[in-house]
């Protein structure tokens, strides 16, 4: 048994090596998509602090967090869903549905706010479970299913309330949604549940067998099944989580604006997906990390609030976000191309064909194998 296990190590020099994991930890952490996003966030933030008037004022960060909180919240479960290679387009409709449910329960049935919020979150979980059932157990493509439930949940929300809005919420609760953790600090209270959830999701995705299963499903669902991952159950619970957290974001959204309307948060799903993908999650699944996603959401938030302070309209902001998104996915390809150029060295060796490049890498053992293998698996 031990002889069998030791054999691969003996043969290793002859076969292909995995350069990605032979590099030291600091290098793997720093030379990554996630770190690039974090660095970009830091640069944009520092630049805005110095060059944008009023950016360092007390209100900027406060409103930044207040406005991006729903995106931050929904991005957590959506990251995991996208890592499994699925997608959920119905999250914004669940936000609207939960918002309406809360308004109706509070106004027409006279339920207290916490009870109405809990029931709304329960409804969100049920909505997510319906998605999960169709995707995980019936085996339908999630893109098509959630385009359907995007229309269905939004339709239920709009159908329940029509064009009317429920605005009668006790001030105690609407104030809470806008309260700051400490008076005068720029951090709103909503950050507390977000941070709790963030810790939970980091533990779940990066430090638990369940999370390893999530990556494995994204890499190869069939192989994951053979290594004992319950693929269907994992996907099902991820959709339930996405539904429940979207509904929680809906409760927050309702209280923050003091109004429950059917068309609340229309189009939010594309913003969340843009932020998640900007944060380095691969749309094909199997790759991505939560620190990158949080940085991606904040990057969009910082860019838009800085541009708003500079008196740019929402139009220019959406152009910038779109360009960022396109660049972020194209960059993998560009980086692979650049590193292929670099690996040829300053001596200007002739361009190598793929077969020969691999041989060249084997001799000097640089990081090129890492980039080429990732770029091929990504396709």
């Amino acid at each position, binding site marked *: 048994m031990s002889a069998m296990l030791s054999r691969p190590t003996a043969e290793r020099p002859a076969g292909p090596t995995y350069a990605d994991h032979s590099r030291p930890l600091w290098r793997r952490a720093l030379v990554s998509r996630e770190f690039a996003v974090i660095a970009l966030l830091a640069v944009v933030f520092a630049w805005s602090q110095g060059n944008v008037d009023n950016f360092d004022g007390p209100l900027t960060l406060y409103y930044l967090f207040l406005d991006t909180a729903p995106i931050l919240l929904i991005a957590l479960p959506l990251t995991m869903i996208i890592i499994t290679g699925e997608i959920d387009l119905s999250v914004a409709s669940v936000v609207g549905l939960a918002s309406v449910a809360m308004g109706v329960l509070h106004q027409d049935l006279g339920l207290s706010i916490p009870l109405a919020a809990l029931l709304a979150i329960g409804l969100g979980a049920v909505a997510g479970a319906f998605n999960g059932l169709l995707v995980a157990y019936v085996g339908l493509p999630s893109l098509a299913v959630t385009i359907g439930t*995007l*229309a269905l949940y*939004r339709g239920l929300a709009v159908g329940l309330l029509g064009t009317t809005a429920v605005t009668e919420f006790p001030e105690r609760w609407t104030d809470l949604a806008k309260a700051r953790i400490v008076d005068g600090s720029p951090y709103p209270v909503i950050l507390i549940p977000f941070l709790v959830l963030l810790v939970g999701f980091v533990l779940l995705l990066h430090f638990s067998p369940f999370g390893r299963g999530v990556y494995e499903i994204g890499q190869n669902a069939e192989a994951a099944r053979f290594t004992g991952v319950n693929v269907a159950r994992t996907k099902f619970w991820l959709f339930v989580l996405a539904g429940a957290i979207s509904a929680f974001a809906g409760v927050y959204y309702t209280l923050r604006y003091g109004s429950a309307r059917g068309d609340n948060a229309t189009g939010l799903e*594309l913003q969340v997906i843009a932020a998640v993908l900007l944060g380095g999650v691969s749309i094909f699944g199997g790759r991505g990390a939560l620190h990158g996603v949080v940085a991606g959401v904040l990057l969009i938030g910082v860019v838009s609030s800085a541009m708003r302070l500079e008196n740019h309209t929402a*139009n220019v902001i*959406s152009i910038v976000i779109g360009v960022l998104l*396109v660049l972020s*996915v194209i960059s993998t390809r560009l980086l692979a191309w650049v590193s292929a150029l670099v690996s040829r060295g300053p001596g200007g060796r002739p361009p190598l064909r793929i077969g020969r490049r691999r041989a060249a890498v084997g001799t000097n053992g640089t990081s090129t194998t890492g980039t080429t293998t990732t770029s091929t698996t990504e396709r």
Partner: protein
Amino acid sequence: MTTLLVEPSAVSPTRRVLLGALRSREIAVLSVLLALIVLTTVKSPAFVFSGNGWRDLLLTPSILMLLAVGQTVVIVTRNVDLSVGSTLGLSAYLTGRLFADNPGIPIVVVVLAGTAFGAVLGFVNGVLVAWGRVPALVITLGTLYVYRGIFLTWAGSDRVNASDLPAAFLDLGTRSVVGIPVLTIVAVAVLAVVGYYLHTARGGRELYAIGSDPDAATLYGLKVSRRVLGAFVLSGALAGLAGVVYAARYGTVSSNAGLGIELQAVGAAVIGGVAIFGGSGTVWGAAIGAFLLITINRALPIVGIGDFWQRAVVGVLIIGAIVLDRVLAARNERRLVEARDRS
């Protein structure tokens, strides 16, 4: 004696055609559509038999039909184009601007300009997807924002009003030839050409091959990148044409023209039996799906269901369509396996 790889079907040709028609998705969706129209007409005869009702019935779906046809061509290659709504808005605004800034410009020139402009936007999508080798969902989500942003920046708070457009152009939006609105004829003509191309032309069949298995298509020697690029250009051009149609139909173009219509176009294709992972489905189905979606929107209030529930019904339809597809596919697979085991 040579053995054939595939035995010719033992069923007689007429029976085969008949069975194929019975099982076809297009016929199923069409009968749902006809049933809906009949039901609504029984409830309110004006839905079909008044002059306006008949015209609206045919005219309203034409914009979504154009988009759904373009979307189908893209989805068949296992891609998706989410930027069509923004493209439609941009092209509709361009149409208005051309008329407002160049009085007396021929209508044909404007139609061509709008379509060509859409094609350019589609070309950008196609280059990014085909060259960048990144998923179309991400790229077109990005260009959805970019195109919409360009549209809003260009238009500002300005909007195109009916008074900016020449009467002859607006007349196109309402005129009918032998009882059929001109814009519907345009949409159906496009549908026929694209449908014929996808069904018979080599380029069209290659799109299906690429969608079924991109790697196999590459190994077989098909020019995958070029075909995918072509599909995006076509989708963009049709969205551009839909923008011109939009301007002619509504007369005003404000900043929310085409907002959110991309998901309706995908939904219409899915209802019409286009598989979201490519390789199967027809533009006929997608066009009937578009017709059904729009007609439901208009019929529900007449049948007595509040029009706020429209979207819920649309959602149920989309989910019903894919569940039905799944059930039929599973049954078909079982039958094939049985047939193999018996032989």
